[in-house]
């Protein structure tokens, strides 16, 4: 095994091309605006990225298993509501750290339960994950609107500010949470029995079943874990916006799918890893922040994200053709 093969196996074959893209994006923006390569810009990037990053990790497991979870935003919102409810019960801004921990536990439980339910329907009824998660999305959105009547819930204790806006050794706290989660995800997918099952199910669920993997239980676990990380994202969102509203982060839903595909995750499942997805996230954030610095609005970044994904797909196609030609030539 050559060094290249070994690095590819460890961090994913998409990593090096994506790192090149990242360098190009950084280079272009630093030439265009002097504001790009500044601590302030990197600071704001590091505060903005984690919510999208955590939600993308929630999307990652289901896609790797050959499915999709379209309910992630509302799972995050509903989990945030669970936390908010506990905090309000314990006196709102007066609530102690114990109430926060209890609320967070309830939030994670809520996320896990909604995820497990989806996983169970996918696994035991053989229904398509897109349909199941769509139905769950509509249900949770409705539940949230029913509970909140479409309004904001705010008035959280001050210490939650640290979670959303604080820094630890000059790294933003949300970023630390994302980095820890990403490392955990990498270990889970590459080193654990569960991760192995995820890849096998994504490659060929029937072969996995006949090989003695408990595919149904694994599917339930995949969606439950996806729900748990949604809850973490929901908690970070509550801290960042200092409020919970059903529909916060709606626009991020399809961006998380975009980030996964950009990071080289196979849309049919079975192939891909965390590291290139993390780089894809940094690229998306850099594009958005850079465009923002030169005075373009968020909508232009949305368009650029879409066009960028198309460009990457075209380049991958060109690369594939080129490699095939090389193989054919020798």
């Amino acid at each position, binding site marked *: 095994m050559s060094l290249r093969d070994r690095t590819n196996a460890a961090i994913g074959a998409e990593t090096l091309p994506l790192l090149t893209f990242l360098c190009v994006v950084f280079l272009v923006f630093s030439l265009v605006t002097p504001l790009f390569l500044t601590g302030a810009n990197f600071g704001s990037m590091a505060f903005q990225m984690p919510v999208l990053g955590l939600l993308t990790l929630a999307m990652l497991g289901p896609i790797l298993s050959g499915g999709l979870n379209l309910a992630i935003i509302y799972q995050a919102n509903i989990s945030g509501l669970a936390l908010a409810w506990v905090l309000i019960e314990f006196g709102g801004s007066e609530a102690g750290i114990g109430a926060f921990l209890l609320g967070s536990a309830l939030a994670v439980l809520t996320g896990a339960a909604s995820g497990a339910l989806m996983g169970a329907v996918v696994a035991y009824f053989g*229904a398509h994950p897109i349909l199941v998660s769509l139905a769950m999305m509509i249900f949770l959105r409705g539940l949230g*609107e*029913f509970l909140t009547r479409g309004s904001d819930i705010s008035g959280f204790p001050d210490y939650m500010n640290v979670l959303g806006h604080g820094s630890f050794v000059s790294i933003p706290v949300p970023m630390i949470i994302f980095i820890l989660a990403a490392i955990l995800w990498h270990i889970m997918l590459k080193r654990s029995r569960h991760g192995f099952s995820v890849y096998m199910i994504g490659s060929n669920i029937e072969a996995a079943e006949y090989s003695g993997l408990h595919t149904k239980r694994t599917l339930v676990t995949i969606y439950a874990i996806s729900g748990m990380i949604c809850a973490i994202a929901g908690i970070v969102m509550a801290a960042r916006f200092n409020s919970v509203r059903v529909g916060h982060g709606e626009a991020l839903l399809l961006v998380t799918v*975009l980030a996964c595909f950009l990071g080289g995750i196979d849309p049919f499942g079975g192939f891909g890893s965390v590291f290139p997805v993390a780089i894809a996230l940094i690229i998306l954030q850099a594009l958005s922040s850079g465009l923002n610095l030169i005075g373009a609005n968020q909508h232009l970044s949305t368009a650029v994200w879409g066009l960028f994904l*198309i460009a990457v797909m075209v380049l991958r196609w060109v690369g594939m053709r080129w490699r095939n030609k090389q193989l054919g030539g020798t």
Partner: protein
Amino acid sequence: MPNVFQKHSVEMRLSLVLLLIVVGLSIKTDTFMTLGNITSLLNNNAVNLIWAVGLLVVLVAGGIDISFAVAASVVQYLSAQVFVGLGGGNWVVGFIVAAGFGVGLGLINALLIHGFQVISIVITIATFNAFFGLLMFFTKGRNIYNLPDWWTDRIFIFERQATDGTWSELNLSVAVMIACVLATWALIRLTTLGRQLYAFGDNPEGARRAGVNIWQMQIVAFCWCGMMAGIGGLMQVNIAQEVVPNALYGRELDVLAAVVLGGARLGGGRGTVVGCILGVMFVAITQNGLNLLGISPFAFQMIIGATILFAISSSNLKFGRSGKARLKESAT
């Protein structure tokens, strides 16, 4: 007859459930089975159904289109510009322009999918972002109210005054919806192209070896969906009386849920126009019924979501995750 049951089990079951709901609502409320309620149900869901049959063709061909709803918004804007340029226009010009732009946007999807061998969900999520982002960027999120009169004038194809003085009427969008539904039915049921779409959706490689032109299939599917998106967009303006750039954002997933609920298989090769109608009407009638029963509007979405989730779980839909399962299914 048992064959019909087996072949269209999802449609059969859904129509039974729908029938139960309709009977239940007719007994429980005296407002459901009125001409006024039925016509407003049709008026309110015409555009959704136009989009649904467009999406159906893509699903049958084994693809998925996330971009059609924002594509409809793009068509609305481009059409509005063209009508200003033409100094007015009329319905004939309107249909040609809107359908033309829709086909053009569908063609972009088809070209990218086929040309670079990328699965449709990746491309349509990319074009979804690109279309929406560019639309919001160029319009700066501003609405257009200043539209040609012919576009916003209400045209009724049917009207009747009840004895108590209330009017019930069907507007133009219902006629267009019927035309679109019939055209789609004819396309996928009566033409060779339609049979090829099913074959291609069920097994692309098999269809290719049997001599089906893959390139043509992608173009037909995505351009048809784009055309329906455009026509739906045109009719939506007729109803809403204004063009709002982000009004249709998010509608794609609701339509998708309804179409798949109606038995179209994600993965291709299966789906009917009747199922499509049932899926859209199921969601619409559930919502309408909740409204008539006096349940809080805040609870509607929650109950609809739960109903769909329940419908999936109880109907034991087998979408067939692999080619093998599909082969087994087609053999029976």
